[in-house]
């Protein structure tokens, strides 16, 4: 077991999400329920991977945690305090919770030097010793010696270096939490490992808390303590990374895992169709129209088939530690095959 996992968990909650619902009005009058009842508690120093297909609501959830979207109901709490949606409160909040996006080329202004890009945050927040902060942030992000990078422009850097600049921009504010949306998926394979190693190092050295939004289960295996799997606005499975990936409970997680190209010897479960429409969520278990267990008759044998299309599985509570270790975190799935519905 790794050193990180052996450590006891901090019981200090940094971010908590309570029965969160985020909706958007659709073009044809419908309402898209992008996040449809999510509970999440993130402890200090934890790395959580939020996984799912595109359209599952993982990015909306991340944006809502950042205060970029206002929930229709439910709340986001930071160190126990509910988020206030006023300009001043959000500015203060965002100094503590920073975002790193997928495409570093798109995140950086091509006409700003590396120094300007990293200094923008501290300047906005009126922090002292700007140059020192920028230098420290760059060097923490692995761009050493930092002075050599000050006057360079994004086009002079490689993809990996650009992503390091974006990460440095976040670090310059001494945040508690970094939310990274697909941080390595636009990077070359050989650079990917270096950026992931950097994230682990930042957690170790700065006690940073990381929420990584990704479709990449390999990434989760590489760095995450805990995995939260989303499907169509809900969490369908959550638990410690080792448990979820070696013993997936929800049919959707099993399907996702089976199409990871590295999984040789595992029969691929290729789900037909794409993530359905959040404006038109299926009745009962929202996964049932694509579920391989329903298709193959497993649900019928277990006597839950009727429930699959009529009874909505209970919303999973935030994963709370039973004991003091990461391994003691509960592993749960919102599936009638795992937790039989009340009537069965």
């Amino acid at each position, binding site marked *: 077991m*790794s050193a*990180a*996992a052996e450590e006891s968990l901090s019981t200090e909650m940094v971010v908590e999400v309570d029965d969160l619902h985020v909706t958007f009005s659709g073009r044809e009058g419908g309402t898209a329920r992008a996040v449809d009842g999510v509970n999440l508690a993130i402890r200090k120093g934890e790395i959580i991977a939020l996984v799912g*297909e*595109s359209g599952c609501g993982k990015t909306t959830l991340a944006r809502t945690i950042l205060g970029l979207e206002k929930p229709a109901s439910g709340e986001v709490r930071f160190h126990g305090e509910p988020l206030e949606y006023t300009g001043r409160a959000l500015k203060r909040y965002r100094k503590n919770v920073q975002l790193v996006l997928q495409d570093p080329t798109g995140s950086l202004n091509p006409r700003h030097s590396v120094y300007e890009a990293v200094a923008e945050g501290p300047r906005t927040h009126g922090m002292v010793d700007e140059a020192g902060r920028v230098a420290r942030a760059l060097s923490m992000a692995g761009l050493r010696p930092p002075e050599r990078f000050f006057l360079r422009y994004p086009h002079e850097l*490689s*993809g*990996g*270096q650009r992503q390091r600049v974006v990460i440095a921009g976040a670090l310059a504010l001494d945040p508690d939490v970094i939310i990274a949306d697909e941080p390595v998926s636009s990077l*070359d*394979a*050989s*650079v*990917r*490992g*270096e*950026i*992931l*190693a950097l994230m*682990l190092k930042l957690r170790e050295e700065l006690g940073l808390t990381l929420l990584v939004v990704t*479709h990449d*289960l*390999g990434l989760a*295996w*590489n*760095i995450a303590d805990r995995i939260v799997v989303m499907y169509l606005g809900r969490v369908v499975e959550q638990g410690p*990374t*080792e448990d979820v*990936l*070696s013993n997936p409970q929800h049919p959707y997680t099993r*399907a*996702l*895992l089976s*199409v*990871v*190209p*590295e*999984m*040789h010897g595992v029969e*691929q479960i*290729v*789900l*037909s169709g*794409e*993530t359905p429409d959040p404006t038109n969520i299926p009745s009962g278990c929202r996964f049932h129209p694509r579920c391989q267990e329903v298709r193959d008759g497993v649900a019928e044998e277990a006597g839950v088939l009727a429930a699959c299309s009529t009874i909505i599985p209970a919303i999973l509570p935030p994963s709370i530690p039973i004991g003091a270790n990461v391994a003691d975190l509960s592993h749960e799935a919102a599936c009638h095959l795992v937790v039989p519905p009340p009537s069965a």
Partner: protein
Amino acid sequence: MAALEMRDVSLTYHPAEGPVPAVRGVDLVVNAGEVVGVAGESGCGKSTLISTVLRLYPKSATVEGEVLVDGENVFDMKWNRMRAVRWGEAAVVFQGALHSLNPIQRIGNQLTEPILLHDKNATEASAAKKVRELLEQVGLPARHANAYPHQLSGGQKQRIMIALALTCDPSVLLCDEPTTALDVMVQAQILDLLKGIARERSMGMLIISHDLSVLASNCDRIAIMYAGRVVEQGIAGELFAQPAHPYTRALMGAFPTIGDVESRYSPSGLAGDPPFPGDLPSGCSFHPRCPIATDECADADVVLKDVGPSRRVACIHVEQGAVV
């Protein structure tokens, strides 16, 4: 005769800053019914390699070697012949499916156009019939012929792109990152489809991707490119099980095997960045990043050599017989 054969192909771009050798002496064979994958990072020359097959490179670029499509060298073709070969004998599925379709034309019209242009005997009716068949072959209902691109999802659009490439029954299909913009689940669907099509039509297929793991489970043979050259080549399953070149090994390490305890909390990568093709390191281009490089590597120009029954590797530290 191979569907596609590249013999010592090189391509150099000539921007104002000086020559950029993007592809340097690549040999590659794709037989009918076979799926060959080319993997490499951005800037390694893999897209340029595809551009040589249909001469899609800029006029100012210089090429050397031979590219044979059904035995005919495309570099020697007259312009008219080249136009007939494009789409007719070799077709491309481009990366950005989402932007390659005309947003104001119905799918059906976009699919019939190349059929009517390439086949003198085709009529509107016969072309429409063929479009219906093609749509079914790529797993879409025939009614999608009446749809506009914005009405389709990313995966459906990529299926349309594949149908579009198949309209003139090419003998070679070139796929440039066919699944990169797609979701994992849809990616698996598209790769299944491509593999099936190559077998059914006994067509040669060349897939390029930066994602080695995508290729490993879907190709018969794989070539790994670095800085414009093929550095390792072999049968997909074998190469995946026993990579020999240090660069291939590093690429494999980048995508962990889930369940492998060693890679837990220890992502592996490669220090440094891929070289700029206009300013390549001396000797083996990989030596500045190579974990096993020695002084020799900076001097010797390393070429591909046989190291096993069906494996070729360009590394002086990989011995003959290293792969069995």
